[in-house]
């Protein structure tokens, strides 16, 4: 498909716009993907540094570098930035925008203008989130969950933060809507559902969660605003309301939201593993359908966040049972990835290293999730550092590492240049070690009773905290090294060939970087997506 003479690629073809306008007004899905990449990378670094400050505070008991109120503000801001601005849009908005149309053989998404619009809404939400830190009466201190009744009483700037989350939810809905229709209507001729690559499959499942779950948190956040502004006491017992109702409504969205985070990550890993094993993915249909199963069952497990907040025994065992059920499709994927490697011709390159560490970290995160999902053990570790370690293993070790894997995998395609792989591997090593040194001790001190979100702690937890803080330092060094290596490739990277890894999905058959409309002629699909001879 690639012509001998290279055509103008999407980075050169500005469609007549100048400077920054060529980016922020472009409806090209690839440029929008890059816009998201830059925005998300900036917020990731900010959120990461805030996390670093928390670790610095926790290096010794008592006040170390900040007062308690500042600490409360920082962990809230860290959560809001990381959850709403980084991991929820994350893979879908960056790689989904860039590669979904290409992988299904389309020239763009179904609604390109809406796509650009959702990036703009994202930016508005981001600005609101930043304002919430500075405007008014100080940074919100409720934690990213905005639990009532504290969120309706706290004197800090909760309304801004809540409204930011609402606006960002709207952006997420529009992206999901766009992807669903794109996948339904714009697959290349011959690409039946079961000939579609698995990253689009995971985006499809994710998009349905985005569309069906996000409105619930939207209305819930509006109720918080109404309670603060108009004293409509939905969640205030003094006015007839019910604070536990807030928790239900919040988790009806926010549990499915963790699948918004992790499903595209699984999709990226599913693309990377066959490419570096030179082998068709094992159990294609099982992986495709398990994404839908996770999306479906994931809807009905929200109660496992609330075992200790007052629910009937029947409701608790029911939610616990479903939590165990939802682990099955995730495990199916892990077995399939490992089986794909079996007897494959494995080529250990940077993206593959990230993919391998994803599986390792995801297993730890997933299995400790079952400790939290079963009723008796959850009561013991509820609201301790154990929970913090668990979800960082899933969200950072899962979604974060998949993002790093994805950027190293697709970087040559997106920019047409190849980074220094040796340095990328060293950065991977540092990140992997730093990550485990940072989060693993939290499992241990969590088991011993270290509560989460605490500014101070008893002396016996100090060893764990010190090790963890050292890990944070190592991790930050590794992340900056990785970013620097990718960034520097713009200057001294080598020109990437069109297909540096020997992948077989459609994106590798285009020139690097792709042209504005991806395909001169829409391809006709005649076989399976992972067809290695």
């Amino acid at each position, binding site marked *: 498909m690639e012509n001998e003479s290279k055509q103008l690629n999407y980075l050169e073809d500005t469609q007549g716009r100048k400077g920054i306008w060529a980016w922020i007004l472009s409806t090209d899905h690839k440029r929008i993907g890059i816009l998201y990449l830059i925005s998300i990378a900036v917020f990731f670094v900010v959120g990461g540094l805030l996390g670093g400050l928390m670790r610095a505070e926790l290096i010794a008991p008592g006040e170390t570098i900040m007062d308690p109120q500042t600490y409360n503000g920082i962990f809230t801001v860290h959560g809001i930035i990381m959850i709403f601005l980084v991991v929820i849009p994350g893979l879908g908005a960056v790689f989904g925008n860039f590669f979904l149309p290409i992988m299904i053989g389309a020239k763009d998404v179904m609604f390109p203008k809406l796509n650009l619009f959702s990036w703009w809404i994202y930016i508005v939400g981001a600005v609101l989130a930043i304002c919430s830190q500075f405007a008014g009466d100080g940074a919100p201190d409720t934690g990213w969950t905005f639990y009532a009744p504290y969120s309706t009483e706290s004197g800090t700037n909760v309304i801004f933060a809540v409204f930011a989350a609402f606006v960002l939810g709207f952006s997420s809905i529009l992206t999901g809507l766009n992807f669903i*229709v794109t996948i*339904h209507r714009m697959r290349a001729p011959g690409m039946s559902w079961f000939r579609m690559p698995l990253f689009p499959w995971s985006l499809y499942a994710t998009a349905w969660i985005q569309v069906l779950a996000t409105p619930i948190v*939207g209305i819930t956040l509006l109720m918080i605003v*109404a309670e603060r502004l108009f004293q409509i006491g939905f969640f205030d017992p003094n006015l007839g309301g019910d604070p536990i109702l807030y928790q239900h409504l919040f988790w009806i969205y926010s549990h499915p939201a963790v699948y918004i985070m992790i499903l595209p990550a699984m999709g990226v890993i599913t693309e990377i593993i066959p490419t570096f094993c030179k082998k068709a993915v094992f159990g294609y249909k099982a992986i495709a359908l398990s994404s839908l199963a996770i999306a479906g069952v994931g809807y009905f497990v929200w109660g496992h966040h609330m075992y200790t907040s007052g629910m009937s025994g029947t409701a608790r065992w029911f939610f616990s049972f479903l939590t165990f059920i939802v682990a099955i499709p995730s495990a199916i994927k892990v077995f399939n990835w490992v089986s794909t490697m079996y007897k494959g011709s494995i080529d250990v390159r940077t993206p593959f290293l990230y993919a391998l560490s994803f599986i390792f970290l995801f297993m730890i995160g997933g299995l400790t999730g079952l400790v939290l999902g079963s009723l008796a053990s959850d009561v013991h570790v509820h609201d301790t550092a154990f929970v913090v370690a668990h979800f960082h293993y899933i969200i950072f070790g899962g979604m974060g590492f998949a993002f790093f894997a994805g950027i190293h995998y697709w970087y040559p395609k997106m920019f047409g240049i190849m980074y220094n792989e040796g340095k990328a591997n060293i950065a991977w090593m540092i990140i992997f070690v730093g990550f485990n040194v940072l989060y693993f001790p939290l499992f241990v001190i969590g088991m011993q009773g270290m509560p989460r979100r605490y500014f101070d702690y008893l002396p016996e937890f100090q060893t764990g905290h010190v090790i963890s803080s050292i890990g944070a330092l190592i991790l930050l060094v590794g992340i900056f090294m990785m970013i620097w290596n990718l960034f520097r490739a713009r200057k001294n990277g080598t020109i990437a060939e069109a297909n540096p890894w020997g992948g077989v999905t459609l994106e590798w058959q285009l020139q690097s970087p792709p042209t504005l409309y991806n395909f001169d002629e829409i391809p006709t699909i005649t076989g399976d997506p992972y067809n290695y001879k």
Partner: protein
Amino acid sequence: MEEHRDDIGSRMGMWIFIFTEILLFGGLFLVYAIFRAKYSAEFHSAAYELNTFLGAFNTVILLISSMTVAMSITAVQKGDKKLALILLGITILMALTFLVNKYFEWGHKVHMGIYPGSDLLKQFEQGELMFFGLYYFMTGLHVFHIIVGMIILLVVMYKVNSGTINADKFVLLENGGLYWHLVDLIWIFLFPLLYLIT
């Protein structure tokens, strides 16, 4: 590149958007159901304060406006631009009437001192408090949707007038109509849940 056109896709996008709107209100209906179950006697007595006649009148108005917007689609399909514009105009007029009624309804209640946070309301039972909280929140959100719907219909009207929407290409009008039906549909549920439970 020529404009990519896919009417089925556009309609599908609109339907999915409508799902999200229904879920948005769905969250509220859930909250309503929970508090209605908890405070059924108070909801019953508080609902007497609402003006059933005005509510019913507004229901009729919205039903008619849904009909006129549907008729305007047929008019465009038949190429009768003038009729389509008139029908859309009537729809928007109906929406305005709805808003005026709502204004008087709310104004009357605020005048009597029944609004969230008022001194009078603080002497009410908790369940009645919750009923009026829900009443203002649900109808308020609905009014917001009416206004958005009116803006959409105005844009559509402008496009019918300029010929961008015509007998060959009318999916935008259909989608605008779908949105208007949604606004109507939500009211159909709000009306009995708030006004007719006395």
